């Protein structure tokens, strides 16, 4: 094996982004930089006295190795596109919100809010850190939208503007639940306070007239809770009823209504104080639980489709003029100019240019494909080298990739299995009703006047709110624990479904393999440095992705003369380098007799007709993947769906075990079909993928988790977003989700004890408001503490 390294003796950190510097070539004063881009940002900030950016946090920047095209934001000069992005505009100022994925620390906050020092037309910038958004207010006479976007890009904060921004209005923040909680809390606390005289009335502190006033005040205060705060539960119960499903909210609503009516009659007949405190209290606690459980990750989106991945505008060539055009306005037969590193937005025919297209995100093919003029290129690919022109043959919405989203299976929301909590609550309700009936018959025989108080008290005490509280608080805690480990689940249902899966389907490219890293190695006769350079120099002549990798692996000598360079498409390249004739290519091209069987792509080398060896290019699997798969295969059936070729099949089979089924060259629709067929066999499928080609499968599977290299990146619609380096913790995540159910059951059993104590008083018809007032908050709070303690403990264990 020949290895060449240029590793520096001491590791230098880039002053801007903190990544390792390859050498000391790029520096300013005592500061070193990893790339020209980082240096440029530093210079801009330095010149404008914004270097506090670097003192607030260490290396707050982002590597700027890939330069952003100069007129990338030219489309922002287009009035029509502007109109759709701008939030507000009057004669002097304009408001716009940009989504800036790189926002991650207080330095970002400081720099962005000091943007006016770089562009005097900007009045004010307000950063919403949670959403990674910046609201920019500027005077349109002094600066332009495009200039602002370019200024942001020049300091490393490129705004992310996608087609999704055009299509739909951003969903408004749901604040209803918070208002309801506020009202419930206010009423609950005041009713508690006003009930104290009542609690102690047996001890001689009673003043009949005052008690009367207190009761009526309590009644008034309970009205907003009953009619406003508790609405959430009425709606959910009614929704369940309409679709013929008895969910847990139904018995809770019954209990709330019974408690309210019982309390009203108590006050009106002057026979007691009622249970307003218990009722408002339980509504308050259940709302807290619901908010905790429904907590959303503002910075993440679980519903992205291709529109979030596509750019907002593209350059169209019209009569030799470059016109930025919004994507929906592109017609067939338009000529599009695709710049280097830009996305192809619509299916088309390549007209001009050298197309090397990276489809890894769309199809899962790991190696970029080379296309020649006249060939069809599909939407979603990213052009890697130079500019190309394509003639569209389909509009954006009808392209091959986007048509995936129009499939019937994905349009209709699937019926998902109801949570076990609802089933549990049903049994619970039947038992309670039975107890209520037994109590009623008992008192009917002994003292009919006590039927009403006893039965209503049973129904009040036995409300399954403890179960709902246990469930919502545990779910909330588990979601929080998972997010601490960088797995962000869409909602609480996903926890339960993740706990129940029995089949795991992996995507290969970008999931099992890392995004960009591939390893290259040489096998065969030892090569001298001169020979390596000769090979490298030859490979550098070709734009084929494998050649480029070999060229960077071997290094090159610029002075070496190359003659008779020949490139045979899909076979290899050959040429004279100084005095040697070198061939690089597949076995047939180089005339190699003994083939090397490896996982990965192989490029054979002959020098002067003599076989010297071969380069093996293997996509680097993520660290710990092998151990993860070997661990998982003991418990689950594993499958692999890859859009790539089967070059690495043997290696993958070895990792995933003999029982795993591997499928290669899978189209997005095939992936979706495979998940559907598994589900027809009754399998509960977890799909882990990352690209747009997995989107259908992710959405269809019982749990779809999309991987992301950092949580800023685009992720297709899924039930969960997992940071890629945390994937090895998958078995742990599943265990945590399984424990979720156990914690709920344990806390529920404990809360049953409270219920039994309450029932003991209730069936006798002697449930005093004081007992109820102590039992209710005590049980709720202890359940909250218990779920918290248990889930933290399970996380540690």
């Amino acid at each position, binding site marked *: 094996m020949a290895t060449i390294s240029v590793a520096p003796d001491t590791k230098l950190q880039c002053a801007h982004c903190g990544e390792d510097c390859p050498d000391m070539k790029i520096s300013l004063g005592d500061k070193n930089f990893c790339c020209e881009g980082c240096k440029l940002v530093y210079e801009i900030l330095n010149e404008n006295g914004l270097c506090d950016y670097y003192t607030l946090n260490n290396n707050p920047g982002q590597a700027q190795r890939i330069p952003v095209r100069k007129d990338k934001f030219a489309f922002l000069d287009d009035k029509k596109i502007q109109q759709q992005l701008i939030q507000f505009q009057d004669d002097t100022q304009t408001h716009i919100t940009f989504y800036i994925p790189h926002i991650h620390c207080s330095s970002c906050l400081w720099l962005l809010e000091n943007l006016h020092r770089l562009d005097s037309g900007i009045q004010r910038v307000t950063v919403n850190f*949670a959403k990674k958004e910046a609201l920019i207010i500027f005077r349109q006479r002094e600066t332009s939208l495009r200039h602002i976007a370019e200024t942001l890009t020049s300091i490393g904060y490129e705004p992310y503007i996608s087609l999704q921004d055009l299509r739909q209005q951003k969903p408004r923040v749901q604040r209803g639940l918070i208002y309801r909680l*506020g009202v419930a809390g206010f009423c609950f606390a005041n009713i508690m306070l006003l009930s104290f005289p009542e609690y102690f009335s047996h001890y001689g502190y009673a003043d009949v007239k005052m008690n009367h006033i207190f009761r009526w005040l309590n009644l008034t205060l309970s009205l907003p809770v009953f009619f406003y705060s508790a609405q959430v539960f009425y709606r959910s119960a009614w929704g369940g009823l309409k679709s013929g499903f008895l969910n847990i909210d139904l018995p809770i609503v019954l209990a709330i209504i019974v408690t309210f009516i019982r309390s009203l009659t108590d006050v009106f007949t002057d026979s007691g104080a009622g249970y307003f405190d218990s009722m408002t209290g339980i509504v308050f606690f259940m709302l807290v639980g619901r908010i905790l459980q429904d907590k959303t990750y503002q910075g993440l989106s679980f519903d992205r489709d291709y529109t979030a991945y596509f750019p907002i505008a593209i350059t169209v060539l019209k009569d030799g003029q470059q016109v930025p055009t919004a994507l929906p306005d592109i017609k067939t037969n338009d000529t599009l100019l695709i710049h280097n590193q830009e996305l192809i937005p619509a299916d088309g025919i390549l007209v001009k240019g050298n197309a090397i297209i990276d489809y890894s995100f769309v199809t899962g093919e790991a190696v970029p494909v080379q296309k020649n003029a006249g060939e069809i290129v599909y939407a979603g690919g990213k052009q890697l080298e130079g500019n190309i022109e394509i003639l569209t043959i389909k509009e954006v919405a009808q392209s091959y990739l986007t048509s995936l989203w129009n499939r019937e299976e994905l349009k209709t929301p699937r019926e998902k299995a109801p949570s076990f909590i609802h089933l549990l609550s049903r049994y619970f309700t039947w038992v309670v009703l039975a107890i209520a009936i037994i109590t009623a018959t008992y008192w009917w025989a002994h003292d009919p006047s006590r039927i009403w108080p006893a039965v209503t008290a049973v129904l009040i005490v036995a409300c399954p709110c403890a179960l709902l509280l246990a469930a919502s608080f545990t779910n909330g805690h588990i979601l929080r624990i998972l997010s601490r480990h960088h797995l962000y689940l869409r909602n609480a249902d996903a926890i339960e479904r993740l706990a129940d899966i029995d089949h795991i389907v992996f995507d290969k490219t970008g999931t099992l393999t890392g995004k960009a890293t591939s390893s290259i190695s040489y096998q065969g006769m030892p090569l001298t440095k001169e020979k390596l350079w000769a090979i490298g120099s030859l490979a550098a002549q070709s734009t084929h992705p494998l050649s480029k990798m070999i060229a960077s692996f071997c290094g090159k000598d610029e002075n070496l003369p190359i003659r008779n360079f020949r490139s045979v498409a899909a076979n290899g390249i050959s040429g004279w380098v100084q005095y040697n004739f070198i061939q690089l290519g597949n076995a047939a091209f180089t005339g190699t007799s003994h083939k090397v069987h490896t996982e990965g792509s192989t490029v054979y080398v002959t020098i002067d007709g003599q076989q010297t060896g071969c380069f093996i290019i293997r996509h680097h699997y993520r660290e710990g993947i092998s151990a993860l798969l070997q661990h998982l295969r003991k418990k689950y059936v594993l499958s692999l769906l890859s859009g790539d070729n089967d070059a690495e099949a043997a290696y993958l089979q070895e990792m995933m075990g003999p029982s795993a089924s591997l499928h290669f060259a899978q189209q997005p629709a095939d992936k979706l079909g495979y998940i559907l067929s598994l589900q027809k066999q009754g399998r509960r499928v977890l799909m882990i993928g990352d690209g747009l080609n997995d989107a259908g499968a992710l959405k269809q599977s019982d749990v779809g988790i999309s991987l992301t290299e950092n949580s800023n990146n685009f992720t297709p619609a899924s039930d969960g977003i997992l940071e890629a380096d945390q994937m090895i913790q998958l078995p742990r995540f599943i265990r945590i989700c399984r424990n979720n159910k156990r914690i709920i059951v344990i806390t529920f059993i404990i809360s049953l004890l409270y219920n039994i104590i309450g029932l003991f008083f209730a069936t006798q018809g002697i449930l005093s408001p004081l007992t109820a007032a102590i039992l209710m908050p005590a049980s709720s709070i202890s359940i909250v503490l218990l779920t918290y303690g248990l889930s933290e403990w399970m996380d540690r264990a």
Partner: protein
Amino acid sequence: MSVIIILLGASLLVAIFFLAAFIWSVRNGQFEDDFSPAHRMLFETKPVETGCKSGNACTNKNCKSTICKNH
């Protein structure tokens, strides 16, 4: 005992005031971003240093910019 009724009214008014304050703050978006305000208040507002844009050709003796290698 009528003083209790007055106190009662007063206490409820105070409570309603806080409820209103809470609703106002939610509506104002104060609970949406718990990071920025906490950090924003810690930033010092320094006077803007006279920026140096002349690079290597800089002649300003007091210039602290690291771009100006003359110093």
